[in-house]
């Protein structure tokens, strides 16, 4: 029991030291006038039970960027988004949103800070009407009636298909329309940071293009966007920079175009030749 106790105490001390170092570096950066990134992840470890899924993750996303988070199934992409959105808390490490430490905040608080998470296929409430779905999105605006009404108007203009179905249950909408609904709701709150997890899951390619155009627009209007993607092609068409996650570790961080040249990294993607080099 003593041994167990000392082990956990030692671990706690290590964590505290790391925390202090991290805060110091951050302070330094601020002092030298560096721009505050939209998202910073430092030394992140994540466990599901006893199972470690993310190993010492470090990444930064600047404000206004659109980056892609690539990787195969089981790599840890969704887990990372869960940690950032506050649904689960990491075991070790710091997550900063626009400079503020958000590691242990609840999703409700993080949403209030201007972060929105869109999970492909699960963001609409099929039992509620389209209007109600949008009303939920306006939660952060609920204090200001005028602004929320205006935001609703704008959303309707941007998505005429939804306008026609305002009072129908969201479950009757097609998959693409439901994603549009989710996007519309997100847009209403004008988030500063938008995390999208597999937007195109199960959708026809044409619908996907429409959605992608909308995401591009959102980014152009100033929202930082992080896109979790399986498809390298789609990532190229949207994001200039990307991260490649594999088995809980970041293997690549840089311009998306460069990623294509990295045979050794795109292990799950075979490229016709150089097969023996893969392993």
């Amino acid at each position, binding site marked *: 029991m003593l041994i167990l106790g000392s082990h956990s105490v030692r671990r706690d001390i290590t964590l505290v030291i790391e925390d202090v170092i991290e805060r110091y570096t951050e302070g330094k950066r601020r002092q030298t006038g560096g721009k505050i990134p939209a998202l910073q992840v430092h030394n992140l470890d994540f466990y599901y039970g006893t199972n*470690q899924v993310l190993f010492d993750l470090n990444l930064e996303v600047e404000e206004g960027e659109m980056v892609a988070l690539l990787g195969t*199934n*089981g790599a840890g992409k969704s887990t990372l988004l869960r940690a950032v959105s506050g649904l689960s808390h990491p075991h070790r490490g710091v997550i900063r949103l626009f400079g503020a430490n958000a590691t242990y905040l609840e999703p409700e608080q993080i949403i209030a800070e201007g972060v929105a998470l869109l999970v492909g*296929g699960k963001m609409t409430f099929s039992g509620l009407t389209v209007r109600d779905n949008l009303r939920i999105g306006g939660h952060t605006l609920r204090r200001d009636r005028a602004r929320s009404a205006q935001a609703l108007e704008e959303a309707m203009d941007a998505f005429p298909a939804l306008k026609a179905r305002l009072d129908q249950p969201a479950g009757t909408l097609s998959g693409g329309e439901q994603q549009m609904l989710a996007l519309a709701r997100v847009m209403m709150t004008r988030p500063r940071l938008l995390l999208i997890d597999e937007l195109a*899951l199960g959708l026809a390619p044409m619908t*996907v293009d429409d959605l992608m155009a909308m995401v591009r627009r959102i980014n152009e209007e100033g929202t930082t966007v992080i896109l979790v993607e399986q*498809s*390298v092609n789609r990532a190229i068409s949207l994001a200039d920079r990307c991260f490649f996650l594999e088995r809980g570790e970041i293997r690549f961080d840089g311009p998306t175009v460069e990623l294509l040249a990295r045979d050794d990294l795109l*292990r799950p993607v075979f490229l016709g030749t150089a097969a023996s080099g893969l392993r």
Partner: protein
Amino acid sequence: MSGPGSRSGPARLTVENLGVTFGGVRAVDNVSFTAEPGAIVGLIGANGSGKTTTLDMVSGLVAPRQGTVRLDGTDLVDYLPEERERIGIVRSFQDCRLFPELSVLDILMLCEDVKREVAVVSTTLQLPWARRAESRKRAAVDEVIGAFGLERFRHHRTAELSTGTRRVVDLASIILAAPRLLLLDEPTAGIAQREAEAFIPLLRRLHEVADTTIVLVEHDVPLVFELCSSVVVMELGRVVADGPPDVVRADPRALAAYLGASDEAIFASGPTAAGPKGVSATGPDVDGE
């Protein structure tokens, strides 16, 4: 149950024109392939390509809308999952969280229980044949635990093990089930790098020892190419390429499928994909695919 159940040794799996729809989306569309007895067939494709759903239909968890699944020629349409298990179709699960509260020993003993059923009354009264059956099961389980190096985890609950170890337990239970057709669903997903590399020799050994046909769904493509005698590539519910690894590797459609919905894939798939806007409805509600 005569037919596939009474034979032993690896079975032949024939999948013909398999199709199923979830909420308006064709999750699996006209899929056909064959797994020869003793072969290892790899099923690859991006998320949403329908690989796991196909596996579900072979194991009986999902009922197909069209098409047939045959084991050694017998149509399996009326076989429930537990019945398929009895005729030799064994399936591993993607998130191997099998039974969190049971220990490794318990789970392996359960596999043995299924093979040798002992009546409750006999167990309660600890009649001699019940005792003998139990010790025989114990012996078989001990052997497997030793073979897979699970000795130190014998009494740990599966909830406390790492994903890699849980997968090994899953494989161990598979050996005990003496499968004729083995369905493996992403055995290396979520496993840390070092453990994943140990999997190829493990799976090879499994294949030798179990003497069974294997159908493997995986994301780790090099692993699939290394291991499998035949590879099936799926995209958006359809088979895009099928054949020995070398052939598939050179197929441009397969490449495109893996990079994700390229233009080629769209035009190649014809009118269905280019249908009216909003043709696909709510995504499949099964986890993942």
